[in-house]
């Protein structure tokens, strides 16, 4: 599998995603600077977390206009797998590759802690090593993760089964206390209709090694290597 990690000014999880990908791929992904306009042939494009452009104006608003994003959009339309984590998810919604928007957390504060997520669909390249309905533990670290979409868009997302992960209780139930940021339908991550683009607010790359407190995240990278190698 060949993978590229996009680096914007202000991205700060680019190295973390590269480390997690390398652990599963056995090779280093390409680090691609946001001002480049060419993108080599790759099977996966990762848009990492961080504070691209300082999260100024709207999270991901300016990064979505970076030169490289035209190429990322073209590849996504052509079916290349695109994984947007945290700020990456925000960039993908601003770039129109994923529906909806990430608003300010309902509690207005930045939150950094582990959360439980229910896997809603395991028949995709991103989640094939998880069971459908399985509860996993990933950490979140954001101030704007409150997923919102207007009624019509949200009905389409639910209708097409595009929800990838929902915030839940440790035993898989749903409860307002388990929803850290007020997201509609407890949505933590969604696919596009073709299921080749995934955006999620939690950070799988941060719990992909037991020494750091857990490895539920590793299986997402293993899933991708298994599907795309």
């Amino acid at each position, binding site marked *: 599998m060949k993978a590229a990690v996009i680096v914007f*000014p*202000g991205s*700060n*999880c680019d*190295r*973390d995603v590269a*480390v*997690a990908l390398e652990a599963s791929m056995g090779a280093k992904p390409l680090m691609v600077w946001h001002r480049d306009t060419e993108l080599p042939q790759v099977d996966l494009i990762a848009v990492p*977390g*961080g*504070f691209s*452009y*300082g*999260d*100024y104006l709207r999270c991901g608003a300016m990064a979505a206009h970076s030169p490289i994003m035209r190429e990322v959009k073209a590849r996504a339309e052509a079916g290349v797998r695109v994984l947007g984590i945290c700020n990456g998810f925000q960039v993908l919604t601003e770039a129109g590759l994923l529906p909806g928007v990430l608003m300010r957390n309902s509690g207005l*504060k*930045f*939150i*950094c*802690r582990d959360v439980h997520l229910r896997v809603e669909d395991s028949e995709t390249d991103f989640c094939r090593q998880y069971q459908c309905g399985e509860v996993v533990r990933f*950490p979140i*670290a954001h*101030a704007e993760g409150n997923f919102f979409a207007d009624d019509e868009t949200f009905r389409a997302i639910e209708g097409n089964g595009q929800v990838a992960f929902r915030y839940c209780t440790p035993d898989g139930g749903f409860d307002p206390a388990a929803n850290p940021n007020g997201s509609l339908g407890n949505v933590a991550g969604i696919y596009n209709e073709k299921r080749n683009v995934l955006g999620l607010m939690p*950070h799988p*790359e*941060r719990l992909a*090694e037991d*020494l*750091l*407190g857990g490895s539920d995240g590793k299986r997402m990278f293993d899933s991708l290597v298994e599907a795309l190698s």
Partner: protein
Amino acid sequence: MSNITPEVIAQHGIKPDEYQRILEIMGREPNLTELGIFSVMWSEHCSYKSSKKWLKTLPTTAPWVICGPGENAGIIDIGDNQAIVFKMESHNHPSFIEPYQGAATGVGGILRDVFTMGARPIANMNALRFGDPSNPKTRHLVAGVVAGIGGYGNCVGVPTVGGETNFHKSYNGNILVNAMTVGLADKDNIFYSAAAGVGNPVVYFGSKTGRDGIHGATMASAEFDEKSEEKRPTVQVGDPFTEKLLIEACLELMATDAIVAIQDMGAAGLTSSSFEMASKGGLGIEMDLDSVPMREEGMTAYEIMLSESQERMLMILKPGKEDVARAIMDKWELDFAVIGVLTDTGRMVLKRHGQVVADLPIDPLAQASPEYDRPWVAPAKPPVVLAEDVPAQCPIEALKTLLACPDLASKRWIYQQYDHMVMGDTVQRPGGDAAVVRIHGTPKAVAITTDCTPRYCQADPHEGGRQAVAEAYRNLSATGAVPLAVTDNLNFGNPEKPEIMGQIVEAIRGMGEACRDLDFPVVSGNVSLYNETQGTAIQPTPAIGAVGLLDDVSRHTTIAFKDAGNAIVLLGETKGWLGASLYLREICHREDGAPPPVALHRERRKGELVRQLIQDGLVSACHDVSDGGILVAVAEMAMASEGLIGAALDH
């Protein structure tokens, strides 16, 4: 009639005797720009004039110390050609005026002190002291400071992995915001600030200069009075996004051989950075202020030299390397300008609009800043208070009260606003005795802690100074790490009062004894004085930041109980010391009595024993006994455990 009137001199915080020294050094009357330069260079914040004499008594050497106090940060050798660069700094006064920006720019400033030496920042911590929670301003200050630390640190992408927070009414008018940064560098690629090479270009890069925080340096040591509310829009505003670009651009440039010397623009901005670089190199410097990138029109030489706009750096490049540096700064979209050249005159010559606006000798000013031997009175030793002197109370009720008090209550609501996991090396998260952060790509890790018990330092500064260092030593050993070195942030009241000066002298004497006996040298630090409002001073707070090394990170130990059935072993004698204790304060509402004495040789032996037991894999959990005593320590170990493992104390 020159505009240097006695009022203008006083306004600049310069005492009459100091002004006489200026006249001797200059050989003439200074103009306003020159006077401004003297005022910031000789402010308490930059010159340490009241504490310098005593700071020299602290031990600063050991086989593993590469660079001690005097540079931007301290440096220690951790083997495999790697070094740890760290320091602590305070932004107390700006944070009281504008908590969010005050705290945020504090984090930005300490980050720059570390990466200017060639180290990638790998962890941040902060030691905070606020007033009584019932004080109306406290809630606003806490919310602002925590949001500012998180807002800046999270955006820059350096994990904030821990710290400590205390509340006491003595901080009502003077909160303390001490920020610490730890960085990782290659041992053979460390950068210092001594300028070298007559004719080499002096280069400015980073953000543009505005009228931010002019007189921030002198304000840092001006005692607060009711008028301080008026010091308004000159508050410094930080831009963490530009700081992240600065970190990446600096480290990318440092991988080339273009840099001769480099220094961040901290307190007193362009003045202190240019002066220190020139004076350390024994050279002169000529700068054309017209070429300084500016954000506002019509800035005078005075404003440019004293501005404390954030996210700016000054460096000396090798000849012909300007283009290499400019290309990297353009990539990272940072301002870049050659603003001057090194000379052999030993003088600082500034030009503005084609005219010389300042011409001062560098060495006499940089080195000859006053050093005071202020009168001091050692505080009286308070009486001993033991358990039998205090009415007993049901232990469980006492435990509930203690665990609910602001000093001991869980600080999760604070550190969950900080990204403590970014960079993927946080092995031990906030809430334990020390944070443990892996050295990326190696089996090694550093343990980091900040410690100080202001109650003890108030009761007996000498014993309090010893205890602060000893507790940091214990917290590092509790994770299995070998304690290596210390940075400090000495926060005290007005040194012109003998009893406050006595606190400073005694606390430094105590710290020195503990650092010497525990082989735990001081490699960097900061002093913040005049923390006093309308005559009432803060509790003496010599905050200690300490770093230790774990050769094998898989052996690190946490405070959480792991399995039922494990034996709980207490090391050390229990003598029932209750003087200046949290028990006495929270339950008996008394703040008197002597703090527990620190037996340094026993601290050292116990530390070595604990580390050996952990090394041998015999220890499943380890916690130092501090505020609240044994019962609180055991309760904290139980609450941290998965599955809430309990404990029976029945032997």
